[in-house]
Each structure stands twice: as structure tokens, then as C-alpha cells.
């Protein structure tokens, strides 16, 4: 069995038809991780005991001839920003290096209840702050397609594990593009669901009004299966909406005839790489050939999205990260004589450069005298950005754009210039700010063989239409010579 080619669908079928046991499948994945992952660095922690226990449970169900749950025996990986009971959970930060979570995130327990097997925790930028995975407190992740290039970030490990075939699917989180951007760079599918569709309980907070958990997989169909398992109201997260979850599988395979696809001019400006532009224009052409109506639209406030994001996100981060003080969990630096000195030494030692930069920026924009000028101003512009989408979605059903302005860049290329790194998320932050769902699907390759991603954005809680359109585009693109 070529396990690197397995999808959620085919892995489940293999277990169901007893071509392989869940335990044997898990064993094969750990062998593959041992052989392949040293060169990539996608994993931070393997949780073998937990994985084999879950595999034995699935095998027992299969032996009894019971109905198997929807993700039975599917080996997955979890970004290390989600808490996993009795398993180290670091958020990619030295300050949480020895933290062992006392409870499971809702998404983790839902995936396990659906039968998935958690192989391990994946590497990421520290506290999910970064676009290249070079801000990991432990080691960078390398792009499986080209080891000299970044996998994107912050969920770089989760994207790379799926691309390298060391997990069938995975879970990430998206605050400014952290699922869609690495999906584009690694050539896999990544979905950011609507804000409030998937629980954040047990997701280590970066920016609470922007953090979205979501899946990575090889196919749109697999994304639908993963989303089905994690979507829905959670009493432990009061921002999850009590809105019915449709059966996403019903939308896979539906034609796009008559659907209106918006193409915003602002996402195709002079900053866009020529090869990315050509690839995405071909993707749009495929949707037109499939019967969709292509409509030119405008999202006029797009140029203000990155500055808005870096005010809102850092303000929320500075507040969320105040909890890392060396008292209740995580690192405590030695030698602090007073409480205040202990706090400072702990935070100075435990946080990396980018996290400190964002805490400083966030504290600054919230501080007396600057709150109105920066924080409130950015929140007002966030309203304008959101209205852009509200207005666009009165005219179109989905919006199609490039996911990133360029394919994957080289390690070290942007590490000295934080602003250049931030601009890697220029096409993805808008959806986080508006809370609308977005998916990135592979859309051809550059001449150098680097994957290119096409992004599809939809209305709040309309992941079904996103998946419908993404599936049609995926199949049309795959059929292209």
C-alpha cells in the first residue's frame, strides 16, 4: 500500500474492507515519519501510545462488524496550538516547552470521536505568528516540494505533513492566512471555515476575534469529511454559532452551472507574480467552462487589510499572551527576586523575537494616547473591509483570487524584514478580518515546479458552496494536460 497517496476516503475504505488494520496502518505511518520527517521537520511530538490505543479501538470495532465512524482509522496530525490531554502542547514556543495539556481541544475530541487517529503534533510558527514557519521556537519546517523553500506559515508543519504523505489529513489554525497560505505553498487543500463554525476551545489563543481552526487534506472531498467532524456549536466556546451544519458531502459533485463567481480587481494588481496570475486566470477559465458566470467585482478597501490586521491582531495578542507569566504553567526563569522581575525574566527568556515584536506593537497601539488613533481606527476600517464582502456577496456566490502573491520563497529570504514577511498574507488577511470562509486549492505549478494556490471565498456559513465550487475547479484542473 502506498500510504503517501492515501486520502481520508481511501484510508477509511482500506480499514472498512480490511485491506489493512488500523494498527498496521499507524505502524506504517510512523515508519514513514521516521524515514522522511528528519529532512522536513513537520512534527514536534509523536503520540504513539495514544495513536495505537485508538487504532486498537477501531480494529476492535471492525472485528465485531460494527458500523465504523466516518473517519475510522484515518491517521491525522494536529497543529501544536491545540491542546491534547497528556500530550505535550507547545504552540511552537519555548515558553510552553514542558507544558502537558490537561484537557483536549473540542476539535481534537471531535476528530477522535469520529474515529481519526492522531499521529502527533505539528510544528508551527511560535504562537502561530509567522508566514514561513521560521519563527518556530524549535526548528523550521522545510517545504516537501523543495527543501530550500519555506512551507508557509504558521501551520507549516500541518501543510507539510499532508504534502509529504506523513499524515493523511491535518488540523491547522488561520488568523491571517495560516491555513490557506501554507496549503498554497505545499500544494495541498486548506480550508478556513467561517468564524463561529468551528470551536476554538483548547486552541491556544493568538488573536481571539480572528483565530479559525480548520483542516488540511489532499482533496476537497477529504476537506468536506474533516469539516463535517469538527463543525458545529460548542457549549465551551460561546462564539460558536448555533446554526445547523449541512451535510457537506451532498455538495461534492454538484455542478456550478449558473453560480456567480466574483473576480476582484484588487487581487490582481502589479504586485502579483506573473506565473501565479496566469495559473489563477486559467483556474477561473475552468470554472467558466464548467458553466459558472464570471463577474468582475471590487473589494475597494483591500489595500488597508494588512495595516488593519497588524493593529487588531497584535492588540489581541498582547492581551492573550499576558497569561505567560511563569506562575501557573510553562517556563519560569530562575533568579527573579521580585514577582515583577520573575515575570520579565520568564517572558524575556521564553518568547522569540517575532512574538516580542507583536506584543510590543500590540501593547503600543492599546496604550494611553494611542488607543483611538490606532486600535479604534483599525476596528473602524475592519467594518469597511467587512462591508466590501457584504456588498460583493449581494452580486456573487463566491469570490476567486490567488491565495498568495508568489509561490513559496526561500528560507531566510524575508527573515530580516518583518514588513515584507507580513505582506505574504496580503490576499488572505481580508477573509480573517471579515470572518468569511476561504479555501485554497492547488492550481498548477510554476516553471520551477512550485505549487500555486487558488483561493475561493464564500458567504458566512456557506462552506457548502465553497466546497462545491472548489471540487469542480479541482477536477477540471486535474484533467488539464
Amino acid at each position, binding site marked *: 500500500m502506498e500510504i503517501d497517496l492515501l486520502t481520508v476516503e481511501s484510508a477509511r475504505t482500506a480499514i472498512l474492507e480490511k485491506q489493512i488494520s488500523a494498527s498496521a496502518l499507524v505502524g506504517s505511518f510512523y515508519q514513514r515519519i521516521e524515514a522522511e520527517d528528519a529532512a522536513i521537520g513537520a512534527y514536534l511530538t509523536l503520540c504513539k501510545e495514544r495513536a495505537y490505543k485508538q487504532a486498537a479501538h477501531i480494529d476492535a470495532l471492525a472485528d465485531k462488524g460494527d458500523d465504523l465512524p466516518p473517519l475510522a482509522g484515518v491517521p491525522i496530525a494536529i497543529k501544536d496550538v491545540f491542546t491534547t490531554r497528556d500530550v505535550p502542547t507547545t504552540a511552537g514556543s519555548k515558553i510552553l516547552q514542558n507544558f502537558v495539556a490537561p484537557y483536549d481541544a473540542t476539535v481534537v475530541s471531535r476528530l477522535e470521536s469520529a474515529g481519526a487517529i492522531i499521529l502527533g503534533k505539528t510544528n508551527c510558527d511560535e504562537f502561530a505568528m509567522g508566514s514561513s514557519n521560521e519563527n518556530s521556537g524549535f526548528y523550521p519546517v522545510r517545504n516537501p516540494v523543495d527543501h530550500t523553500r519555506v512551507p508557509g506559515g504558521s501551520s507549516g508543519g500541518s501543510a507539510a505533513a499532508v504534502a509529504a504523505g506523513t499524515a493523511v489529513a491535518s488540523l491547522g489554525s488561520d488568523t491571517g492566512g495560516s491555513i490557506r497560505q501554507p496549503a498554497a505553498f505545499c500544494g495541498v487543500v486548506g480550508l478556513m471555515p467561517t468564524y463561529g463554525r468551528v470551536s476554538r476551545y483548547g486552541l491556544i489563543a493568538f488573536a481571539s476575534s480572528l483565530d479559525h481552526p480548520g483542516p488540511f487534506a489532499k482533496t476537497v472531498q477529504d476537506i468536506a469529511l474533516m469539516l463535517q467532524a469538527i463543525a458545529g456549536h460548542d457549549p465551551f466556546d460561546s462564539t460558536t*454559532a448555533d*446554526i445547523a451544519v449541512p451535510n457537506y458531502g451532498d455538495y461534492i459533485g454538484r455542478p456550478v452551472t449558473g453560480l456567480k463567481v466574483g473576480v476582484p480587481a484588487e487581487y490582481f494588481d502589479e504586485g502579483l507574480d506573473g506565473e501565479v496570475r496566469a495559473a489563477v486566470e486559467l483556474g477561473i477559465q475552468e470554472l467558466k467552462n464548467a458553466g459558472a458566470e464570471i463577474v468582475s467585482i471590487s473589494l475597494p478597501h483591500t489595500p488597508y487589510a494588512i495595516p488593519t490586521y497588524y493593529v487588531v491582531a497584535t492588540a489581541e495578542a498582547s492581551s492573550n499572551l499576558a497569561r505567560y507569566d511563569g506562575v501557573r504553567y510553562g517556563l519560569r526563569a530562575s533568579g527573579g527576586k521580585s514577582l515583577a522581575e520573575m515575570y*520579565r525574566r520568564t517572558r524575556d527568556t521564553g518568547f522569540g523575537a517575532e512574538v516580542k515584536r507583536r506584543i510590543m506593537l500590540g501593547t503600543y497601539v492599546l*496604550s494611553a494616547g494611542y488607543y483611538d488613533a490606532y486600535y479604534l481606527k483599525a476596528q473602524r476600517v475592519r*467594518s469597511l473591509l467587512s462591508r466590501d464582502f*457584504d456588498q460583493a456577496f449581494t452580486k456573487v456566490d463566491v469570490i476567486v483570487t490567488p491565495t498568495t502573491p508568489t509561490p513559496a520563497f526561500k528560507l531566510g529570504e524575508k527573515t530580516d524584514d518583518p514588513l515584507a514577511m507580513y505582506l505574504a498574507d496580503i490576499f488572505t488577511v481580508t477573509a480573517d478580518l471579515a470572518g468569511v470562509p476561504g479555501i485554497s486549492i492547488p492550481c498548477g505549478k510554476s516553471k520551477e515546479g512550485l505549487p500555486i494556490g487558488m483561493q475561493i471565498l464564500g458567504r458566512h456559513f456557506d462552506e457548502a458552496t465553497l466546497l462545491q465550487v472548489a471540487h469542480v475547479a479541482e477536477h477540471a484542473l486535474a484533467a488539464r494536460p
Partner: protein
Amino acid sequence: MVSDKDVSYVADLAHLDLTSEERARMLRDLNSILAYIDRLNQLDTANIEPMAQVASRYGEPKDKAGEFSYALRADELSPCLPREGALRNAPVSDGTFFKVPKVIER
């Protein structure tokens, strides 16, 4: 423009010390990022409501109990993290409390 003094003030608020090298780099980076953020002032937002969260955008389902009623729950006892679990990750504890350096000086 952010000054050295501002960097010290904000670091203090954020409970960070920062080395002199980190402070110099921070001064440079904050000024470059804030200069970029200043483009927000090109927009007149005098009559625009600030947006703090997303739920206000899509309109919540309303029932008899009112908006956001799903976010409320009955005030009933339910299991929570036991003390051992809560203290397990403590850097220093006496088994009952988290221990910290002395807070009040005599």
C-alpha cells in the same frame, strides 16, 4: 515616531526587559511597521462603527430568549479540572497553591 523612551515604557507595560540590541531593533521595526499602518489615516472613518467581533456581521438567529441565547447555559454544577490537574504544570507549587516570589516587602 516611536522613541527610545517609548520602547522602554511599552516594554515595561508588557513585562519585557529586552536587551539593548533588542531595543534598537524594536525601535527600527516598530517605526517601520507604524509608518505602514499610518496609511489607515487616508480613510475617513468618522461615521463608521468599530468592529470588535464577527458575529455582529451575520446577524444571530433570534429566539424567545433573545440574541446570543445559545451562548448562555444553565447555572449548574458540572465536572471541572481537579486540583492535581490544574497544578500539574505549575513551575513551583506546594500541592495546594501556586508559589511565587515574595510580593509584599516588609
